[in-house]
């Protein structure tokens, strides 16, 4: 349907959405690029032209690159954990289990809840003296642990909350994938004499490869924006222990009001993310699906 008669219609379908999005997004994007070339800050507000000064500065901004590394570790780590747990839970409630539908609903619930609000609740749970986390571990003679005040513990806490919040999303995508799988390959494997482990690695997992890739990429994209939980739980602390790239930009931009510098950080961040995610997507497709398809 690529004849000229269709042109009017084909544009009518696409343009409202595309132009709408462009209108909302284009200004911020160009504005950010422009601001990144200025020295706009609390001291000298205004759109002057500063060339690439901000970019030159950020190259040697160790705190920024460290926050980037931290973000990468956090995103990859939580997504991996979410994938494994989500897949495991999806497998468990996929078929023969009692109260299957009840568990399915239950496992979906966390993703339906507002991250920032649940983070507030988690903050009370992880409260060193008044929260139930240390109280519970105390039963086993463990702790008390400085959940939010020690660097490594704070990191673990943020990741745990992320896992709690977003494993359901992984679970949802993977379970939807599992439910749509055809029956025959499993019958064939049973007839061939394969046990559960062989069946998983030769049938379930390969069949789920496309869904897995999709789910992991989507989650990586969302996880890279990690913000709400950091903001509520640790505010990037203690020190910079849980500071992610996004949070660092937030501090430089909205707290220190170095708008120009924050914009340069944002642009750099965007470029790096798009490149990284594209590369990761390609790599995932290659390892899961192999060449040729």
């Amino acid at each position: 349907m690529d004849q000229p008669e269709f042109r009017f219609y084909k544009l009518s379908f696409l343009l409202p959405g595309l132009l709408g999005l462009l209108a909302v997004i284009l200004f911020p994007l160009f504005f950010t690029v422009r601001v990144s070339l200025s020295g706009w800050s609390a001291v000298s507000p205004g759109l002057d032209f500063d060339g690439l000064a901000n970019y030159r500065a950020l190259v040697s901004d160790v705190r920024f690159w460290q926050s980037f590394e931290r973000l990468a570790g956090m995103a990859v780590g939580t997504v991996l954990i979410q994938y494994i747990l989500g897949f495991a839970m999806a497998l468990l409630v996929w078929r023969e289990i009692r109260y299957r539908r009840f568990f399915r609903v239950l496992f979906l619930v966390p993703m339906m809840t507002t991250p920032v609000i649940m983070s507030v609740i988690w903050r009370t749970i992880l409260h060193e003296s008044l929260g139930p986390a240390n109280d519970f571990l105390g039963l086993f003679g463990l702790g008390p642990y400085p959940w939010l005040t020690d660097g490594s513990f704070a990191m673990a806490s943020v990741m745990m909350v992320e896992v709690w919040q977003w494993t359901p999303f992984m679970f949802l995508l993977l379970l939807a994938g599992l439910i749509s799988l055809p029956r025959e390959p499993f019958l064939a494997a049973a007839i061939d004499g394969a046990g559960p482990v062989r069946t998983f690695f030769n049938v379930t997992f390969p069949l789920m490869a496309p869904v897995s890739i999709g789910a992991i990429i989507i989650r990586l994209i969302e996880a890279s924006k990690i913000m709400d939980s950091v903001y509520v739980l640790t505010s990037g602390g203690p020190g910079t222990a849980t500071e992610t790239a996004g949070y660092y930009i937030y501090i430089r931009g909205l707290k220190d009001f170095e708008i120009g510098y924050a914009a340069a950080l944002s642009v750099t961040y965007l470029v790096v993310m798009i490149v990284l995610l594209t590369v990761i997507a390609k790599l995932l497709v290659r390892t899961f699906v192999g060449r040729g398809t």
Partner: protein
Amino acid sequence: MSLVVQELSLVRNGVPHLGGVSATFPRGQLTAVIGRTLAGKTTLLRVIAGLQAIDGGMLDLDGRPFGRLPAWKRDVAMVYQQFINYPHLSVFENVAFPLRKKRLARTEVERRVREVLSTVGLADFGKRRPSAISGGQQQRVALARALVREANILLLDEPLVNLDYKLREQLRDEFRSLFSTQEHSVVIFNTTDPAEAMMIADQIVVMHEGRIAQIGKPADVFEAPVSVAVAEIINDPPMNILAGRIDGDGLLLGEGLRLPAPPRLATLPRRAYRFGVRAGELAPADEAPLVGAVTFSEVSGSETTLHVAGEKGSVVLQLEGVFVMPPGTRIGVAIPADRLFVFEDDGEGRLISAPAAIGGS
């Protein structure tokens, strides 16, 4: 009064789908387009329907060009290979859909839908959803929706290929009466089955690799296929083609199969040719020049097809009736020399000599 297509060409990603297709499809006649999968049959129909852009060429109906009209203004009805209906509408509403679109009076719509539903044998199925009836019935609904419009052009893209063979036979028999209501329409019917094409068509268009290989009356195409490709396409099982030559001692086929040259062929220049013979014109014989083992026998309708591999060549025979012939059975095959087709021994394989036409309607 006809649909004329001229020099239609279409190349996508370097693959030629249509390579200069020209043909005339008269109104009130059924043209069968026959060819293998990917010969360009479906593309041709989609171009006529306006669903596919072309690189060049002309389309006109009764002398009026319509190549620039959008699909929804062309008055073309189409039936697909897959059983395509509107899933959310009942059978009745499916058939009524194109009429309601034309804003016909309600009573008129009712009358015509009922009429066509009873023609296709679905009078009692009006209230059902397409998903609640069998595949054969779904295709009847699709047919009804195409017929009810009495469109200028009715396109059928292998409509029977996904039905099993008894249903196919049944619907094929009904086509005669189904299309009798479409006396002003151009009807074009795609198929890969020569018997289907021969039975229902007034005119046959043979397509091969995006081009038209031959156009003619069914019997003419069958009796005198212009090339090896057409000979293979218009026969089921495909015509046996054996390489060989004519020399001083007569005909030499396959790997040393000697036949006396009948008068028709004796006068041809002595050189290499390709020889063709229909599977149905080969017969088992005790003393025969070609002896071989049956590698496979298959039943098709009321016929048995034997694949015979011999030292001097391999052929396919079609026998009337159903027989059990276990693989490995050795049989002799008589080759009637006077029934041989002779083709050029080159890439195109043009017809040089065809046996005398026999019978037919």
